[in-house]
Structures are given as structure tokens and as C-alpha cells.
């Protein structure tokens, strides 16, 4: 499965999606089955139990976390454990929840480190939390454009953004919670700060949704629609809740720009590149 093999030992980083075994792609599954060493970071026992049926050698990375310690140290520990096995000459597969590049620091970092050291390394695409959101909320990110920010980052590093595009803010229930701490109580006060900032850009009646994807096949996703102004008092907030802010009314196409583009397209003589 790996490209450009140079040294003995390789790394493939895959994701399992969110529905235990229901969303894993066949290519990711083959990698897990064929790997000599498998490391995983999954947050439910059904998925990790299933993973061990694919490859009995699967080892959890969960013990890389220490309570109260900042996330980057746990990440560094995971990367080193994964890359150490690659250095020892094994074909390694690292398995994460959802999509292994999205919000999973050790996924990309271990691939980069292994490749820098001369090993073949790659990430495979997987079902991300956004894929579930688009399907469950009936949102087409292509029709209005979409902006995605980690909620704390969105607040702490303010940026220019287009309110006529769909806005997705992940970890909206975990604002400011950077450490790995025991318990999973959401930060309700943080959500109030986020609401205050959004009210500078959207009317208080603008309908928004708190979304949590289904984690197990028998449970439906949790979707709570409400007016933006009511967001701070929303029930059902969790540390993994995503906030979906639909776009405001689309601006019309700028006539001059669009007719110019159409004219340019009409001038294209044929398919071939010169």
C-alpha cells in the first residue's frame, strides 16, 4: 500500500470513521489486517474490540496521556512510539478515530517524521466528522462554501470570514480546554463567549445547530436547532459538540466578474492543454 519504498519499515496512518466497523474503508481495513504492528487511539471499547479481531497485535496509545498534562506531550509520546516500530523495520499501521488528518496531531506528525527518516509513509482518507455532519444535516458545503475552525482557535485568533458561507466550529463545547483532563464536562461559559462574538456578525434569530454524530450504529446523531441568542442555554452540550452556523443569504454574482469569466470560458478552443 505504500509508495516510494526506500528503507525496510513503513507507516500507513488510517481512520475508522465513527460507526464502529460501519464506516471503515476496505483499503484501511486491508492495511490494518496486513500490518506487522498496529497502534490505535480510539475512544470506545466496541471499536477497539473490533480492531483486535482484525489484528490481534493491535496496541492502544491511550497510555500516552497523563492527566493534567498539555496535549502536545502526549502527541510526542505517540509519534515516538509509532516511529520507533517503523525504525525497527516493521510495516506499521496507526489507527485513529474519524479522519486521521483532521484534528489528530500524531497522525500527520508521525508520517512526516517517518518520511524525513527515509521510510515510506502515507495517510489514507477516511470518514471525517464533517462528512457525518453534511449527511445528517443535509448540508452541501459546495453550494455556499464552508469555513471550518476549531472553536477556541476561532475566538483566540480572530480572522476575516464570510458570513454568507457555512461556518463549522468544532469542539464548541470544549472551548479553552486544552489539557487532557479527567471528566468530560463541557465549558458552558466558553459557549457564551462564542455566542457573544457570533452575535456581532449574525442576527440573534439566526438558526444554528449543535451537532454530535452517532458513535454507535444503534444511536441516531444528536441535532439541536435553536436561535443563536439561545445558544448559551442549550441543553445537550458535550465536549465533542460541533456548532453549525448556516450561511446568511447569498450575495448575487457580480455581473461584471461573471460575464468576464463566461466570456473567457467561451474562448477556450478545445480540451487540450497547449
Amino acid at each position: 500500500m505504500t509508495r516510494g519504498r526506500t528503507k525496510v519499515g513503513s507507516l500507513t496512518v488510517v481512520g475508522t470513521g465513527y460507526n464502529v466497523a460501519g464506516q471503515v474503508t476496505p483499503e484501511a481495513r486491508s492495511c490494518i489486517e496486513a500490518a506487522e504492528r498496529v497502534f490505535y487511539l480510539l475512544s470506545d471499547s466496541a471499536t477497539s474490540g473490533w480492531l483486535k479481531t482484525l489484528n490481534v497485535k493491535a496496541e492502544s496509545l491511550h497510555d500516552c496521556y497523563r492527566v493534567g498534562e498539555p496535549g502536545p506531550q502526549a502527541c510526542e509520546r505517540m509519534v515516538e512510539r509509532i516511529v520507533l516500530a517503523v525504525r525497527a523495520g516493521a510495516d506499521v499501521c496507526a489507527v485513529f478515530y474519524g479522519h486521521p488528518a483532521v484534528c489528530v496531531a500524531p497522525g500527520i506528525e508521525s508520517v512526516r517524521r517517518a518520511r524525513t527518516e527515509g521510510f515510506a509513509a502515507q495517510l489514507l482518507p477516511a470518514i471525517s466528522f464533517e462528512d457525518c455532519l453534511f449527511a445528517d444535516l443535509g448540508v452541501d458545503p459546495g453550494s455556499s462554501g464552508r469555513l471550518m475552525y476549531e472553536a477556541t482557535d476561532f475566538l483566540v485568533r480572530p480572522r476575516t470570514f464570510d458570513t454568507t458561507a457555512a461556518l463549522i466550529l468544532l469542539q464548541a463545547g470544549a472551548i479553552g480546554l486544552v489539557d487532557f483532563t479527567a471528566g468530560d464536562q463541557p465549558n458552558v461559559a466558553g459557549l457564551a463567549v462564542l455566542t457573544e462574538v457570533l452575535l456581532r456578525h449574525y442576527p440573534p434569530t439566526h438558526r444554528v445547530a449543535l451537532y454530535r454524530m452517532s458513535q454507535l450504529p444503534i444511536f441516531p446523531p444528536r441535532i439541536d436547532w435553536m436561535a443563536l441568542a439561545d445558544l448559551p442555554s442549550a441543553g445537550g452540550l458535550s465536549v465533542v459538540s460541533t456548532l453549525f452556523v448556516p450561511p446568511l443569504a447569498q450575495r448575487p454574482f457580480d455581473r461584471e466578474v461573471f460575464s468576464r469569466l463566461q466570456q473567457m470560458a467561451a474562448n477556450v478552443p478545445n480540451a487540450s492543454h497547449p
Partner: protein
Amino acid sequence: MTKRPSLTIVGTGFLVAGQVTPESWSAIQVSDRFFFIVGEPATRLWLEQQHPRAESLHDVFWDGRPRQPAYDEIVARILAPLHQGLDVCAAFYGHAGVFVYSSHEAIRQARAAGFTASMLPAVSAEDCLFADLEIDPARDGCQSFEATDFLARKRAFDPRSGLVLWQIGALGVVHYYHRDLWNRDGLDYLVEVLRRSYPADHPVVVYEHMQLPVCPPLIQRTALAALPRCTINTHSTLWVPPVAKAPVDEAMLARIRTSSLHRLYAEAV
């Protein structure tokens, strides 16, 4: 009580059967009627073998036909068997809900008519881009637009977050053509607009995801100013990395720290 007929919309990802999730594959198998609209021939062949009554919807498109009547025809054909009491599954390429009008519209109309309807998630073109270019879209934020829309609606954006522009090879095109539309003038104009926010030598990537298991993704790395010299087709996507990290709003950081400390305190007592 009779069971209400249901509509399930699935996506096939991009690697023939290699990215089809088990839940989507089962949905195809258990349906009474199965429709698909997938341009890639190997995937089409594979899908035809997955259901005894697999029916391609590809004949709704022909050169020069406006898109909307084609989309409406897709919806009507998917919904028809529901009215005869049959369970329907329809498969689209990639993620069925991304850059697809007819899938969402079919679900809306099916629900309005009292049927059960749902969409299953699938691997999208953006998922492939994040994996192949090794980008975490949550790190600096990610702004994603269709390229013609980006230019014609004069979208506000921030160069300190990532920018993904889709269909840079079909700038200004509103009709369906079964050929590559390489609009050099349009690309020059796109570069002119981006140059107001990024330096000429800003590194950008023209990306085309894998279509078949044996073909690696096409990744062309270039300077922004040299973009019009890249090979670009209707599947090409432009990735523009952030120019710099946006500065921290210290007052906001302090407020957020306080709010999270309160939360930790509440948990302790």
C-alpha cells in the same frame, strides 16, 4: 402496519470499491431499486455487479444541456419507485452530499412526501486532499469555495487560514461538457485576485485525487504566479496554505482561560 418505503443515498468515494464503507455497501445490497451516477468507468462496472437491477442515471447528461433539468430528472427517477412502495438506494461519486444538488433535493422531496430518507457519509474529495497533502484543516482553519463562486461573489476570506478552491478548471462554466475546460484567461484572473492577498512566490498546490487504485494522486507544487502554467482540468483543485499564523487576541485568551477555569472548579466541587 406496512413499512414505509425508504430512500438511502450513499457515496462511493474514489477508489472503485476501495473506499465504499460497509454500511453503504449493505444499503446498496438490501435495496429494491438501485440507481447510480458515477462517471468513472471501473466504479460503474463494479456498481452494476452489486445489484441485479442497478440502473445508471448517466443518460441525463449530454453536451450543452443546462444542468438544472438534468438534476431535476435525476430526482424524479430516484423518487418514482418509492411511490410504488419500493426501497431505493442511490449512489453518487465521492461524498453524495458534497457538490451534489440532486441528492439533497431527493431527500427533501422524499421526506415531504412522507417517506423515510437518509444519507450516509462517504469519503469526499476534500478528505483525499487532506490525507494526500497531509493537511490538518483544523490547525489554522480552512475555507473552501467553488472557484467561480469565489470570484463572482467576491468572497471575503483570510489568507492566514487555508484556502481550497474547487473546479479551477471550469471557471465561468455553467453547462455540462464532457471534456476538459482549461480556461487560461480565467486562471490569470484568479491569480490576479489572489495576488492582492498573497505574495507572487507563495507556494500553492494543484491537486487531483486518485481515480483508480493504481494511479497516484497528481500533486503539482508551484508558486502562485506560475499557476496558469500548470496542467489543469475539471477535476483540479487549488490548495493555498496560510501565509502566516493569525495573531492572538490576548484579552480574549484571558477571558477564555477564566471561563475554562470556572468549568474545572465546577467539576471539582
